[in-house]
């Protein structure tokens, strides 16, 4: 048998024929070269493996509200508004999640634009109240889902005016 495969030793494992592989002498090639100098007198077919691969990069689309208008006046005098965090086309690794955290440098406090008046508020999902840097939404693989967040002032405002604050949503992929 005078087949020579100048390739990695792994290829030799795939060969049904007794192939002499000079793996240590041959350079590392990206191809398997089967040289048969025995031709038709060689009864054994030569074989070589090719690794096939496909990589799917993690991807997701998360949509967060640009503004939340706390325009709904509740019976207790507080004001509230809602917004949804939405996820689409989530393709991530197994056992991973797309996590969305919320943070506020003011500690969830609205400030009146023209004065020093402030108004504390909280962010909730149902009865769950989120603290600073808490995860407000998690999305698993293949999921298109949304989580509704309610922003509500803790108390009724004492002063009229336009109150604003900025919250930051941090999106990451993890366990």
């Amino acid at each position, binding site marked *: 048998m005078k087949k020579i495969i100048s*390739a*990695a030793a792994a*290829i030799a494992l*795939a060969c049904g024929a007794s192939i002499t592989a000079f793996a240590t002498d041959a350079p590392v*090639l*990206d*191809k*398997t*070269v*089967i*040289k*048969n*100098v*025995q*031709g*038709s*007198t*060689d*009864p054994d*077919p*030569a*074989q*070589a*493996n*090719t*690794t*096939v*691969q*496909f*990589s*799917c*990069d*993690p*991807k997701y689309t998360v949509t967060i509200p640009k503004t939340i208008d706390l325009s709904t006046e509740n019976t207790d005098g507080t004001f509230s508004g809602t917004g949804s965090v939405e996820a689409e086309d989530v*393709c*991530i*690794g*197994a056992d991973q999640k797309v996590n969305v955290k919320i943070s506020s440098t003011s500690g969830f406090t609205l400030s009146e634009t023209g004065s020093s008046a402030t108004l504390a508020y909280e962010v909730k999902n149902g009865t769950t109240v989120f603290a600073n840097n808490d995860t407000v939404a998690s999305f698993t*693989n*293949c999921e298109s889902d949304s989580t509704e967040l309610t922003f509500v002032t803790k108390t009724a405002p004492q002063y009229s005016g336009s109150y604003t604050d900025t919250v930051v949503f941090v999106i990451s992929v993890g366990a």
Partner: protein
Amino acid sequence: MKKSVFAAALAVVMASASVTAFATENPNHQLTRTGTADTAVTYDVDPGYTVTIPKSITLGETLEVKAENVTLYSYESLVVSISATSEEDNSFKLRNGLRSLTYTITKGEDVVDLNSALLTVGGNASSGTAELKFNEPETAPTVAGTYTGTVTFNVRINGMA
């Protein structure tokens, strides 16, 4: 004058004698005074081939299988096919842990099947090339990651005597 006479006599003796000795052992033709002889001229061409197969391929790319220096007998042909995959049922699948995705291989417009001839070189041809497209799955995988598998190429000679 004496030398001439002796030489002439020797020539007569040699010409009239038949050469029969060592016929079975001597590889040379036996020559007679009026015979002819042929000399067979031979040249052996050893059969052989070189087939080059890429070691790896990524879905979406085209793989080239190349056969060169194919020297076979006239009644033979070299055939390259895919004889197996990494799957137990030899289906064209890649795996990422327990997850799998199915892919196809096409040669031109034709979908490649297991054991179908992908490249045939025979007759007067001494080389040939087959381009195989490893197609991405029609449906994107639902789990990110790297999916791998193997295909085993088989090189055989058909019409073996």
